[in-house]
C-alpha cells in the first residue's frame, strides 16, 4: 500500500475542508494511505517568495525536511504548494549554498533536508501511482454525458521540467479522468490560462478580471461544470462568480476532481463534502 505524507497547505483546511476530505476518501478507495503532517507551516508561495527567496526556501525546505523525518514522500493537493515544494526541492538539490543556509536554519528544530523526499501533486498520483486502468475498473456510478471544463492551474503544471506533472500547454490528466467517469471533457478558449488567484493579494481588480475572463470563456463552451485539482483555483473560480460583474449570469459549479470522481466511485456525496460547495453541482450528479 502506497503511503504519502499529506501536505494540505494553509488555505485548503480552512476554506476547502471538503477538498481535503474528498482526497483522503478517494485515495483510500485505491489503497493510497495519507498521513497528515503535523506542525507544518505555509509553503511561502508567492507572497513570501516575492519578498525573500531565502525565507521562502526555508519555509518550503522545512516542510520537505519534516516529511523526510516522517520517512514519507509528500502529496500536495494545492497547486501553489506542490509548485513551491517542487521548485524549492529542485533548488536545494542543485544549489549547495542555499541548501547549507536552509539547513542551518532548520538545525534549531533538529531538522535536516537531505534530498531523499519526493513531492507529488494529486494528479501525478492518479496517473503514476493508481493508473487510468485502475480508475476505470473502480467506477461504479458513471456519469452520462455531463459536459465539464477542466482547469489545471498554473503552478500544478509549470515549470514543466521541474514539476513533471503534465504538458502545460496540452494537459490531459483531468480530462481523461472526466471521460473515464463518463463525463464529456470540453475544450475551451484559454484552457491553460491562469485563474487569477495569486493576484488576489496584490491587485484584486486584475485578479477579478482574469477570473471573470476565464469563466466567460468556459461559459461560452456551454458546460455543466468546472473540474479543478487546486484549492486556490477552486476558491478563485467560485468567488469571481459572485461579484458585481457576474450579476444576472448563471453560475457554473466548480468541483474538485476528487469530489467528481468520488461520486462515480460510489462514495457518498455527503462524505465528499459536496454540500459545502458554494455553487450547487446537483445537476451534474443528476446525470448519473
Amino acid at each position: 500500500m502506497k503511503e504519502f505524507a499529506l501536505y494540505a497547505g494553509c488555505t485548503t483546511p480552512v476554506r476547502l475542508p471538503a477538498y481535503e476530505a474528498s482526497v483522503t476518501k478517494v485515495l483510500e478507495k485505491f489503497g493510497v494511505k495519507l498521513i497528515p503532517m503535523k506542525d507544518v507551516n505555509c509553503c511561502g508561495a508567492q507572497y513570501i517568495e516575492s519578498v525573500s527567496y531565502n525565507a521562502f526556501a526555508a519555509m518550503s525546505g522545512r516542510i520537505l525536511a519534516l516529511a523526510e523525518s516522517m520517512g514519507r514522500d509528500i502529496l500536495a493537493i494545492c497547486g501553489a504548494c506542490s509548485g513551491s515544494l517542487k521548485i524549492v526541492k529542485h533548488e536545494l538539490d542543485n544549489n549547495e549554498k542555499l541548501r547549507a543556509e536552509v539547513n542551518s536554519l532548520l538545525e534549531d528544530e533538529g531538522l535536516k533536508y537531505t534530498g531523499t523526499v519526493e513531492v507529488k501533486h494529486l494528479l501525478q498520483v492518479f496517473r503514476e501511482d493508481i493508473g487510468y486502468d485502475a480508475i476505470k475498473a473502480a467506477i461504479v456510478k458513471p456519469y452520462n454525458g455531463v459536459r465539464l471544463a477542466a482547469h489545471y492551474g498554473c503552478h500544478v503544471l509549470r515549470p514543466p521540467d521541474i514539476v513533471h506533472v503534465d504538458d502545460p500547454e496540452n494537459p490531459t490528466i483531468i480530462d481523461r479522468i472526466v471521460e473515464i467517469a463518463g463525463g464529456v471533457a470540453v475544450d475551451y478558449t484559454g484552457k491553460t490560462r491562469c485563474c487569477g488567484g495569486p493576484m488576489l493579494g496584490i491587485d484584486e481588480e486584475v485578479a477579478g478580471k482574469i477570473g471573470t475572463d476565464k469563466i466567460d470563456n468556459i461559459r461560452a463552451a456551454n458546460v455543466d461544470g468546472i473540474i479543478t485539482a487546486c484549492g486556490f483555483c477552486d476558491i478563485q473560480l467560485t468567488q469571481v462568480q459572485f461579484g458585481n460583474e457576474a450579476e444576472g449570469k448563471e453560475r457554473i459549479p466548480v468541483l474538485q476532481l476528487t469530489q467528481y470522481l468520488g461520486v462515480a466511485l460510489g462514495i457518498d456525496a455527503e462524505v465528499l463534502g459536496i454540500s459545502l460547495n458554494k455553487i450547487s453541482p446537483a445537476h451534474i450528479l443528476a446525470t448519473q
Partner: protein
Amino acid sequence: MAKSIGNALIVGGGVAGMQAALDIAAQGFGVCIVERSPSIGGRMAMIDKTFPTLDCSACILTPKLSEVLRHPNITILTNSEVGSVSGKAGDYKVRILKKARYVDEEKCSGCGDCATECPVEVPSEFDQGLGFRKAIYVPFPQATPNVYTVDMDNCIMCNRCVKVCEREAIDLEMVDEIVEFDAGAIIVATGAQLFDVSAYPRLGYSLYDNVINAMEFERLVNAAGPTGGHLIRLSDGKVPMSIGFIQCVGARDVQKGVPYCSRICCMYSIKNAVMAMEHNPDAKVWVYYADIRAFGKGFEEFYEMAKARFGVRFLRGRVAEVMQGTHSGNLVVKVEDTETSEIRLIEHEMVIVSPGMIPPEGMSKLARKLGLPMTDDGYIKIEHSFFGPVATKDPGVFVCGMADGPKDIPDSVSAGSAAAMKATIILAKGEE
C-alpha cells in the same frame, strides 16, 4: 561522357541531393540517389514561390528534376531506403531496400489512365492532406520519375488499374527488393521536416479550421494545389481579408527541444505574406515575429519591399494565444506589441503558423547505420565549421542541405556542390 569510374551514393533526392548528384555526375562518376518518397524533388517541390525573388518553385526546380533524370550517370531509386552500410571510405557496400511500388518503372509512361480508373481517394500527402489523390498516384505533376505508385495501405485490390493499363505496367503482387550498390563516397542529404505545430495548442493549429501551417499555405496558393491557387479558408471557402503569420513556432524554444533558429521561417513567411497580398491586394496581412532574420543575399531588400511596397505589417511580439469566435470562424490573436508595450487583440480571418524545422523521421536510425554522431538537436554532426563544414566523422561520408541543420535553398545548393567536391576527391583517389 567519361566512363563511370567510381560511384557515389546520395541519400535524399531534395534540392541539395540533386545538386550533389549533378556535380558528381558532371565529373564522370556514377551516382545513385536513394529517395524515400516516390519522387525526387523534396520540400522544394511542395513550395509555391521561393524567396527572395519570388520565382515559382516548380519553375526553377523542374529543369533540375529532368536534368537529374536524364543524366546518363545518375540512377534514381525512389521508394527506397538505405538498408545497411558497411566498408570504409572509397569502398562502401550499401544495401538498399527498394520498396515495391507495384508499378513497373520501365513500363509505366505516366499516362495516368490508372489513376482515372482508381475508385479510392485519399488525402494527398504532397498537398498536406488538403487535396486528394488516388490509391495509385504520382505525388505531383512534375514527379520524377514520372511513374505511378500504388499506396498499398489504401489499395482495395479491385484490379481496375491493372486492367486499364495498356502497357501492363501494374503488378499488385510486386515485392520489395534489396539492391546492392558499391559506393566510394556517401552523401547524406536527407533534409528536414516541419515541426508539428499542434504541440502549441494555444496557437489553435489542429483545433481551428482556419489556423493552418505554412506548408499548407504553400499548397493553398499554388496553382496546382487543392484550390487551384485560390487563397480561401478551409472552413467556409471565404476569401480571407485579414491574415496573420505567427513566427518562431517550434524554433528558438528551449522548452520544446528546438533551441536553434530554423533559419528559413522569417523569409518564407515574408514571402508568404507577400503572396497573400499578391492574391488579394486588399487584404491586411500581419507578421508576428521575434526578430526578423533576413540575412541572406537579397533578403533584407526583400523584407523592405514587403513592408514598403506591399504594405505587409510587421509586429514584434510572440503570440500568446489564438482564439476562435463561435460563429464567424474568425480568429483573434493575442499578442504584446513589444515596441509599444501594448497588449493587442487582432482579429484575423486566417492564421498561418510558421513551423520551424526538425530533423527528418528516421534520422537517428540512418545515423546509426552510417555510424555518424549527431548533434544534440538531432542533426548529423559536421566535422568542423571551418575545416569540414560538409564532412562527417567518417572520411567518406559527407552531408549537405538540411541534414546537418536548417538551410535555405541557396545554402543547400552550395552545400550540395561542396559535398560533391569532397566526394569526388575520394572517388578520384580510387581511380588512381
